C-alpha cells in the first residue's frame, strides 16, 4: 500500500467535494492510502497569487511542504495548479541553498522549517511512477469499452518540464495511455494541448473565455469524442460549468453538450461504479453518454 498525505487544495473540497469523497473510496482499491490533515493552506495558485507576490507564493508553498515533512510523508496532489506550485517550490528550495535559507528565515516565526525531505506527486505521477499502468490494468473491473474520450491533461502538470518531468509538454501521451488502460478509446484532437482558457475568465475576458471553451468542445466532438476527461479541477470547472455558461452564446453547446469526467471519476467507472455512485448528478452537464461497460453494472 502506498501512503500519501493528501493535498486536496482549495477547488476540490469547495467546488467539487464529490470528487474528494470518491478519491477516498476508490484510491485504496488501487493501493493508494490517503491521509488527511487540516494543517495545509492554499498551495497558493501559480497564476494569480504567484503574480501578486512571488516571495509569499514560494514561502507559503514551502510551509505546506514543511507540514508534510513534520509528518514524514510524501504529498499527493489532485490538482494541476497545486502540483505546479508545490513541485516548483520543492525543486527550487532543494536545489538552491541560499534561497532555502532565505525562505526558512521567513518561516522561522511560524515554527516551520523546509528541510527538503519529501516528494510531491500529482495523482497521475503516482499512477505513472509508483503503480504503473500495467498494474492498474489488472485492477480494472469494468472496462469502459466503446467509450471515446478526449483527454485533456491540462497545462500545469506539463510545464516546467525540467522540474515536473512528467510527459512530453508538446505532445503529451500519458493521459491518453491512462484512458486506454481503463478500456476506453482516447481520441486525438487538434486542441488537446491547448489551455482550457480559465485565466481569460479570471482576467474578465468572458467572451474570449466562452470562445475558447467552444473551440475545444466542438473540436473534441468533431473528432469523435463522447466525453472530455481531465485531471485538473480548474479545467474541469471551465469545461463543465463554463460550457453551461458559454452555451448562452453558442446554441450548439446547448443542443449537444459534451459531458466532462474528472480523472478520478472515469477511473471509478472502470472500477465498477455507476454514474450515480460518482456523483454525476452534481455536474452541470448531465447528458447521458454511451457507457457500455463490460460486466454490465453501469449503464
Amino acid at each position: 500500500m502506498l501512503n500519501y498525505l493528501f493535498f486536496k487544495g482549495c477547488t476540490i473540497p469547495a467546488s467539487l467535494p464529490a470528487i474528494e469523497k470518491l478519491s477516498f473510496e476508490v484510491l485504496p482499491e488501487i493501493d493508494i492510502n490517503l491521509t488527511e490533515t487540516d494543517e495545509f493552506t492554499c498551495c497558493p495558485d501559480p497564476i494569480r497569487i504567484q503574480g501578486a507576490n512571488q516571495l509569499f507564493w514560494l514561502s507559503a508553498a514551502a510551509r505546506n511542504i514543511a507540514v508534510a515533512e513534520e509528518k514524514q510523508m510524501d504529498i499527493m496532489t489532485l490538482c494541476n495548479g497545486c502540483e505546479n506550485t508545490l513541485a516548483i517550490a520543492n525543486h527550487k528550495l532543494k536545489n538552491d541553498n541560499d534561497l532555502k535559507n532565505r525562505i526558512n528565515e521567513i518561516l522561522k516565526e511560524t515554527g516551520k522549517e523546509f528541510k527538503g525531505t519529501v516528494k510531491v506527486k500529482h495523482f497521475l505521477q503516482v499512477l505513472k511512477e509508483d503503480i504503473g499502468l500495467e498494474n492498474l490494468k489488472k485492477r480494472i473491473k469494468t472496462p469502459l469499452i466503446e467509450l471515446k474520450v478526449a483527454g485533456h491533461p491540462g497545462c500545469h502538470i506539463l510545464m516546467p518540464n525540467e522540474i515536473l518531468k512528467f510527459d512530453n509538454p508538446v505532445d503529451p501521451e500519458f493521459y491518453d495511455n491512462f484512458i486506454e488502460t481503463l478500456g476506453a478509446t482516447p481520441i486525438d484532437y487538434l486542441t488537446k494541448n491547448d489551455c482550457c482558457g480559465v485565466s481569460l475568465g479570471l482576467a474578465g475576458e468572458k467572451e474570449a473565455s466562452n470562445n475558447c471553451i467552444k473551440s475545444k468542445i466542438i473540436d473534441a466532438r468533431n473528432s469523435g469524442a463522447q466525453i472530455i476527461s481531465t485531471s485538473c479541477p480548474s479545467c474541469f470547472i471551465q469545461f463543465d460549468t463554463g460550457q453551461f455558461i458559454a452555451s448562452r452564446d453558442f446554441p450548439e453547446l446547448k443542443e449537444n453538450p459534451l459531458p466532462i469526467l474528472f480523472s478520478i471519476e472515469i477511473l471509478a467507472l472502470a472500477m465498477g461504479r455507476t454514474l450515480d455512485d460518482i456523483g454525476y448528478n452534481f455536474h452541470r452537464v448531465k447528458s447521458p453518454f454511451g457507457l457500455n461497460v463490460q460486466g454490465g453494472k453501469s449503464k
Partner: protein
Amino acid sequence: MEVIKLKYDKNEILKKDKSTEVCFKCSTCSKFCPITQFVKRYNIEDSFVTQLFEAEKPEALHDVWMCCACEKCVITCPQDTNPTDVFTNLKEKAYQEGLAPEIIYRLVEQLLLESTVYGLKFANMARKRAGLKELVKNEKASKELNIIARKTGLSQEQEKE
C-alpha cells in the same frame, strides 16, 4: 529596411528581465499562445508581447493577468526567452502599485482570512450536498500564513498595526 521604432524606452521591469534583451519580436510566442487568439482585439502583427514592449507602463495593462503560465511561449521561443517570467514579474509590480484587477486583491484578502481562496460558507454548502463533513478554519495554519504574508510584504497594512 524598415526599422521598428519603439514609442518609449524599455520599461524598467523589462530592462531588468534579461530574457527580454534577446527578444527580436518575431511573435512566435503569440502564435503559440493558446489564449490570446480568442481575444478579438489581438492579431499577430500587433501581438501581446509587442504591446508590452510598446507600452509605457506595461504592468498597468490588465492583459498580463490573462497569462495562464502554461509556458507554451517558453517552449517555442527561438531565442530561449521566458515570457511567462516576464508576465509574472509584471503582475507582481502591478499588484504592488495597486494596478492589478480588483478580483486579485479580493482573492488575497479571502486567502488570508480563511487560508483558502474559496469562502468556507460557500464550500460547506457544496460539501453538505455531497454528504461530506464541514470544513473548519485551522486557526494555527491561518496565523502562520498571515505571518508569512507580513514577512514577505503581501500584507503591509497589517504590519503597521
